[in-house]
């Protein structure tokens, strides 16, 4: 009985029940409104099967992930540099924080429009947009981590005359790591959402492109399929990559 309940919790049984109810409702509504407005769950599932067997799913997912890897990757690298600068200089920290506040309050749409003006209809649109949107999120987390480093531990490092690089490596980096991973977690989710929007303009691959193209040819079914793909990628990366990473770096707790 007890173990039965634990299994129920593990499988999120109540959630599954609600999800099943929603599926039924979806099916009924699909029948009522027709395939253009709301394709049935089975049709969507069949569509997913099609793009998996045709290989389209890998092609577009890879295109999207590559753009994210570049834009988000550069954002993470720059955030780490900002963290290092903040560790070395109080003034640098202040400047970085102020600029991040400005970046943080800028809309995705601003960057999409600007990137079209600057880069035309090219790969660099989604990459640039992803970069500009994820940079403040990741960097703000890293900076918070750097300023949250325990002064008393740094003082301990001083008394034992640890060199600057050693103090950075042994004290600052490990205590900032959880903040970095948390920032990357949120940042990656944002990157996927944002890059897909940016892919509506000017590129001929990627999940956003595939979704918009499906809409244009009136294949609503495939719009749902690509949305599903996006959700699957998000959940998989979050659980497998960031979940594992977060557990890994906190194993000393």
């Amino acid at each position: 009985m007890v173990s039965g309940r634990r299994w129920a919790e593990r499988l999120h049984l109540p959630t599954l029940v609600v999800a099943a109810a929603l599926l039924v409702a979806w099916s009924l509504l699909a029948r009522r409104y027709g395939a253009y407005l709301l394709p049935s769950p089975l049709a969507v599932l069949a569509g997913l099967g099609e793009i998996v067997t045709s290989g389209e799913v890998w092609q577009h997912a890879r295109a999207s992930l590559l753009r994210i890897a570049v834009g988000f990757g550069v954002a993470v690298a720059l955030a780490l540099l900002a963290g290092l600068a903040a560790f070395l200089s109080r003034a640098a920290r202040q400047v970085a924080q102020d600029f991040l506040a400005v970046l943080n309050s800028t809309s995705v749409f601003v960057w999409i429009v600007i990137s079209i003006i600057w880069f035309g209809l090219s790969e660099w649109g989604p990459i640039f947009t992803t970069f500009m949107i994820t940079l403040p999120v990741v960097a703000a987390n890293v900076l918070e981590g750097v300023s949250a480093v325990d002064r008393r531990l740094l003082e301990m490092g001083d008394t034992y005359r640890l060199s600057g690089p050693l103090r950075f490596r042994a004290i600052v980096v490990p205590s900032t790591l959880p903040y970095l991973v948390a920032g990357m977690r949120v940042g990656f989710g944002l990157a996927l959402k944002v890059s897909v929007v940016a892919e509506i303009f000017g590129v001929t691959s990627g999940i956003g492109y595939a979704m918009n193209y499906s809409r244009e040819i009136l294949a609503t079914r495939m719009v749902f399929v690509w949305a599903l793909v996006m959700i699957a990628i998000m959940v998989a990366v979050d659980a497998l990559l960031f979940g594992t990473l977060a557990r890994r770096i906190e194993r000393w707790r």
Partner: protein
Amino acid sequence: MAAGPATPAAAPPKLRVDEVGKDYAIPVIARVSLTVAAGDFVCLLGPNGCGKTTLLRIIGGLEPATRGAVALDGEPIVAGRAPRHRVGVVFQEDRLLPWKTLEDNVALVLQPLGLDAAARRETARRYLRLVGLDGFEGYFPARVSGGMRQRAAIARALCIEPDLLLMDEPFGALDAQNRRIMQREVRRIWRETGRTIVFVTHAIEEAVEIGTRLVMLTARPAQIRELVENDGRRPRAALVDDLNAMIMEEVERQQGAAPSAGA
């Protein structure tokens, strides 16, 4: 060098505290002069908030003095500048890095001494053994008790073979039993290693139990009220009573004397 309090002949003092004072918004330390011989176990006593910790931090070069000077083996200690001598500090909190094992925590501070990895490891293990942490080398701090963490902090302070070991109420966070055990341990380690120790506490019994010289400070702004050679010639109980009476006076003085406005 200006003439400090005269030290009789022969061995120059290990540590010389010369007319040291410190002001924050109000004067915290008036003027304290003190010489410590090599191998001394000095206890700084005084009411809470009288400036004991500040004095220790000045001696350790963690904080600048407003006036006066500190010298270790004749070498001035300047806050913010790495001294040539080795100073080990045990703080009120263990200040271990939570993401490093006890062994790695100790080995870390050996790195600036230029030992190779194997030697660091070997030395760290030796000192963890000395403080009774045999078998716990691979534990993370969160997995052991507060007393054991403080032991590890002591091992870390000792492993650099410090010219001077500073301890700032290191057992304040421990329960009474662990406190007693740790006092005996520190006394034993002091005897085995012969280090020069300056130990801050407000517990009279603790000081009488472990120190060879007891320095009673006055209420803020601190100066030396009494210097006691704890050589066992006076009955311990009488000494404890005396010191307790003194510290009570100082506590009352400190609480009665709110920082007076104006000069």
